[in-house]
């Protein structure tokens, strides 16, 4: 869908290779497509029976094989729900999710589900709670080998685990393989998580804020490992983050979500340099950017993230938008084409 126009900026050769994988992009091989997907969660309390949380509304995008799409948004914007719907931890309330051009059925048999999970894997946000504290690293990483029948015999599995640990930079593997999660630092645990994800050689990896719980100094190494593995194995990422600069570092394409809806989607250059939607502009001006100098414009904003139980009528951003007009509160703006591959949900 989206092709990077100018690569003049990318100095290092490796980067050029990562960012512009020509054979893969010319084919337009769509691996994942979401068509008007909604996800509503019912609330069952006495007072608000029948009310729903609009976690995801009218989310559509498509992703070519070998590309990285970053979904950026504040907490409660529905970005994690999107990942969970794609990974089938949640089933969407309406709309269609197409994987390799086949729509995912609402109900899957156990066999189909395992086959799908082998292709689409997730990296979770919290490295401290996503590893079972009573199991050793060897035991945790042996699960995918057993479930997906990737290797037979204890020795073969152990060798496979060691290979994985080397790939994610936990060297020498003998030092880590028999440890428990609490003996590892946050960064090392996240590497184990990544190793578990990549053990099945998935086609699609959904990374839900993989660096947000880590210290600044180790975030880059986790991001670099993900980029290196992607380059080696040529897989596709959906990278979820709240950090616009991190999204630009990782991804060719960026989707900006707000209150359950995609507000702007396009290539990283288009979204960041030719920002169209007022919400993206707000996010951009709020992000720390010391290289822009110490003088910066004051933020123009009011209000808070809206309640998703009773989302604002019309455009969900209009109560906070400095450019809001009458029409904004009346109807939900449709996705409109701004430029080739650059879409925004705004009447402006």
């Amino acid at each position, binding site marked *: 869908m989206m092709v990077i126009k100018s690569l003049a900026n990318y100095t290092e050769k490796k980067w050029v290779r990562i960012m512009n994988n020509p054979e893969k992009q010319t084919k337009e091989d769509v691996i994942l497509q979401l068509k008007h997907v909604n996800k509503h969660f019912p609330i069952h309390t006495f007072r608000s029976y029948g009310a729903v949380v609009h976690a995801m509304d009218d989310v559509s995008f498509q992703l070519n094989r070998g590309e990285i799409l970053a979904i950026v948004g*504040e907490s409660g914007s529905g970005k994690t729900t999107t990942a969970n719907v794609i990974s089938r931890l949640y089933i969407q309330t309406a709309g269609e999710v197409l994987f390799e051009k086949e729509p995912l059925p609402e109900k899957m048999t156990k066999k189909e589900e395992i086959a799908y999970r082998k292709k689409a894997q997730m990296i979770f946000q919290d490295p401290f709670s996503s590893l079972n504290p009573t199991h050793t690293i060897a035991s945790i990483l042996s699960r995918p080998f057993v479930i997906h029948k990737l290797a037979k015999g204890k020795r073969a599995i152990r060798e496979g685990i060691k290979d994985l640990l080397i790939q994610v930079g936990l060297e020498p593997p003998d030092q880590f393989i028999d440890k428990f999660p609490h003996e590892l630092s946050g960064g090392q645990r996240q590497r184990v998580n990544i190793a578990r994800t990549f053990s099945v050689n998935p086609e699609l990896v959904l990374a839900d804020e993989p660096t947000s719980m880590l210290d*600044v*100094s*180790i*975030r880059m190494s986790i991001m*670099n490992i993900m980029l290196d593995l992607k380059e080696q194995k040529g897989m596709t990422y959906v990278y979820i983050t709240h950090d616009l600069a991190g999204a630009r570092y990782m991804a060719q394409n960026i989707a900006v979500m707000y209150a359950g809806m995609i507000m702007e989607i396009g290539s990283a250059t288009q979204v960041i340099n030719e920002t169209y939607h007022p919400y993206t502009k707000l996010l951009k001006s*709020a992000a720390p*950017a*010391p290289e822009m100098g110490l003088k910066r414009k004051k933020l123009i904003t009011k209000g808070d993230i809206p309640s998703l139980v009773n989302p604002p009528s019309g455009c969900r951003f209009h109560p906070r938008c400095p450019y809001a007009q009458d029409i904004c509160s009346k109807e939900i703006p449709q996705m409109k084409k701004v430029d080739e591959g650059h879409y925004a949900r705004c009447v402006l």
Partner: protein
Amino acid sequence: MMDMEKNNVLQIKELKAGYEIKSGFVGAVDDVSFSLKKGEFLGIAGESGCGKSTLAYAIMNLLRDNGCIQSGTVQLNDVNIASLSEVEMKKIRWVDLSMVFQSAMNALNPVLKIGEQLTDAIFAHQDLSRTKAQARAKEVLELVDISSERYDAYPHQLSGGMKQRVMIAMALILQPDLVIMDEPTTALDVVVQRTIIEKIQELQRQFDFSVIFITHDLSLLVEISDKLAIMYAGKIIEFGNAHDVFTDPLHPYTEGLMASFPALTGPIKRMGGIEGKPPDLLNPPEGCRFAPRCQKAMDICRREYPKEYVKNDGHKVSCQLYREKMGENHE
């Protein structure tokens, strides 16, 4: 009392603080010295476990249980806080220095109205009538952009950003000279974080108090601070004007930190971050504590801790690389 330079609100000298545990003493703050002028905004940056929160608690004299100040002085105006008893400390705390805590979301009492919690701080220190205290509480709420009608609200009725602003209002209610902020915006979203920081800066200009702002987010600190201190494994390894530290980082660790956050503008470069992890403070490595992770480490680094070297403009660094290039700091 030690002589104190004019205009200095806070002067810390050779402060050592940490925690006594079964297997020894964890020196979370080791030999830290710096001073802070009136109205100055000092940012302290470092990874988790580098001792930045312990430093904040030591300045507040709040280390409890197994935590203690081992040696050194913390001089606030004319008083050495480190030597005060709890009773004496209670008179100073919140009047002369106050703190905004890390988990501000949980720092408010959930069963008390925010107004009551604000006036509590007043009644503990001043003999004011209820109406006057109430008026003052409403005034500080308005200062942080919360309508005074919310005086009777309970914490759960407020959003995360508003709770954080109530905490800031509470820290300012007795007009202290120094406010310590320990990661006040870490749990918040970027947009909310930005509005709160703008608020803090505006209030600071208005009331001219000093701020110590602690965070791991160096990119944020560079924008908002006057002075910047970089902490690693209990020691301040670099100290200077924020602009100087950003444009010309001297210590290899600072350079590494600068290379740890991607930029929003300009060309995309592959960035490295810092390999390895911080040392165990129970048995810190001999010599420079960063040496095991440092790409530029020399033999001498592993043997002795570097002295503090100072550049002409007051930019200080503790690194052997500058042994011959710069003069020693004799303060």
